[in-house]
């Protein structure tokens, strides 16, 4: 039984993320009595098709993602957002993809940080960095509520918790805030009963938001 919301840090207009914000957020979790439990990690990989004729690239998905979520180290998830497809697979699917030699890794990102216990809630705060780099690309937070697995039934308690959390964080006057953009799970064929596939879809969504916010900063600079 569990339900999870994955949130991303939305910097205020004209600002960007930095590690100081991450430190402040972690301190804030501890200030509301979050007990540090250990590290967590998720990974997200963008795949691109290996094409003989690049002019036909539009026939293949541009947003094909492979995701490993913290709660299922032996599973691997594929998401194609544009077509609302999520697939759960044993992690051996990665070997199959390598053997097919039809898609290759374009870029991989790690989501990693510390996990905290707070009563019936589990919080995971982490940075988004490319693998083999410390270049901070974003900040994410997972809010997990352990006693309920229905998305609808848990909505009120999740919203109330987030309200308390946002209020605690607002005292630190940070240049941005955590945003929760819930994907339409029904479009992916997922039910109200929460599963790791829901988590994978949320990560794909958070990634899209991070890219959009980076692109908007870049367009402002230009």
């Amino acid at each position, binding site marked *: 039984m569990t339900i999870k919301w994955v949130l991303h840090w939305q910097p205020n207009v004209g600002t960007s993320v930095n590690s100081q914000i991450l430190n402040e957020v972690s301190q804030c979790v501890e200030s509301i009595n979050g007990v540090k439990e250990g590290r967590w990690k998720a990974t997200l990989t963008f795949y691109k*098709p*290996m*094409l*003989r*004729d690049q002019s*036909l690239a539009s*026939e*293949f*998905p541009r947003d*094909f993602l492979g995701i490993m979520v913290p709660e299922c180290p032996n599973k691997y998830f*594929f998401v*194609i957002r544009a*077509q609302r*497809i*999520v*697939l*759960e*697979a*044993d*992690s*051996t*699917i990665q*070997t*199959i993809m390598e*053997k*097919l*030699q*039809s*898609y290759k890794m374009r870029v991989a990102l790690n989501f990693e940080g510390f996990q905290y216990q707070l009563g019936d809630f589990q919080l995971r705060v982490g940075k988004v960095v490319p693998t083999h780099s410390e270049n901070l690309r974003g900040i994410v937070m997972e809010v997990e509520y352990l006693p309920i697995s229905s998305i609808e039934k848990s909505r009120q308690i999740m919203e109330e918790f987030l309200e308390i959390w946002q209020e605690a964080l607002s005292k630190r006057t940070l240049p941005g805030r955590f945003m929760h953009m819930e994907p339409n799970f029904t479009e992916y*064929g997922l039910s109200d009963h929460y599963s790791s*596939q829901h988590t994978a879809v949320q990560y794909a969504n958070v990634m899209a938001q991070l890219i959009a916010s980076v692109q908007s900063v870049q367009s402002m600079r230009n």
Partner: protein
Amino acid sequence: MECVVQGIIETQHVEALEILLQGICGVHRDRLRVHEICLKNNPNLGNVASEVRLLCDLELPEPTWTVKHLGGAMRGAGAEQISVLVRSMVESKVSKNALRLFNALGYKLDHELLRVGFAFHFQRGAQITVTVSSVNKMLKLHATDEAVPVTPGIQLVEVTAPASSENYTEVASAVSSFCEYLAPLLHLSKPGVSTGVVPTAAAAAVSLMSDDFPRTQPE
């Protein structure tokens, strides 16, 4: 990686084969009903021609899906000398929309089959699986209820065992020795090397079907 051999048997002797397998293995058979969908890559996609199989186990209350990739056979003098085929094999259990995902990635249906029969899983020097099945083709897309046999009166027997680069010679020899027990009823060889039905099958079947045959594994 896996070691594999295949053979064929006339449907009329399948019951005798089942009795023989039951006697040798000492385990009960599992029913087998698998929808196999073979997909091939779009010609513009990938460095090489590739294919992937989606297997849907229809025997379970809730159909379950597996993605399977079979690689090329091991080559070289060592591989020639052993009587079983050693090839790379990777499987991954997946959720139900694997076909939709692979279609979106540019993999299209090449052919589909329905295998109906039974399987024995047991440990005998290696983790051996024997499947005996009739191979059926679908007259309409995905219509597993309207499947018809590809080779009426003939069933496919396949013996497989998972192996690794460290132990494949031991596994291959375990599979070979096991196949000798089945020799009166059928001959098993590397896939693609057809040896047909064996002439002794009818007599062996009669003997196996008689009440004298011990139905449990001999001491």
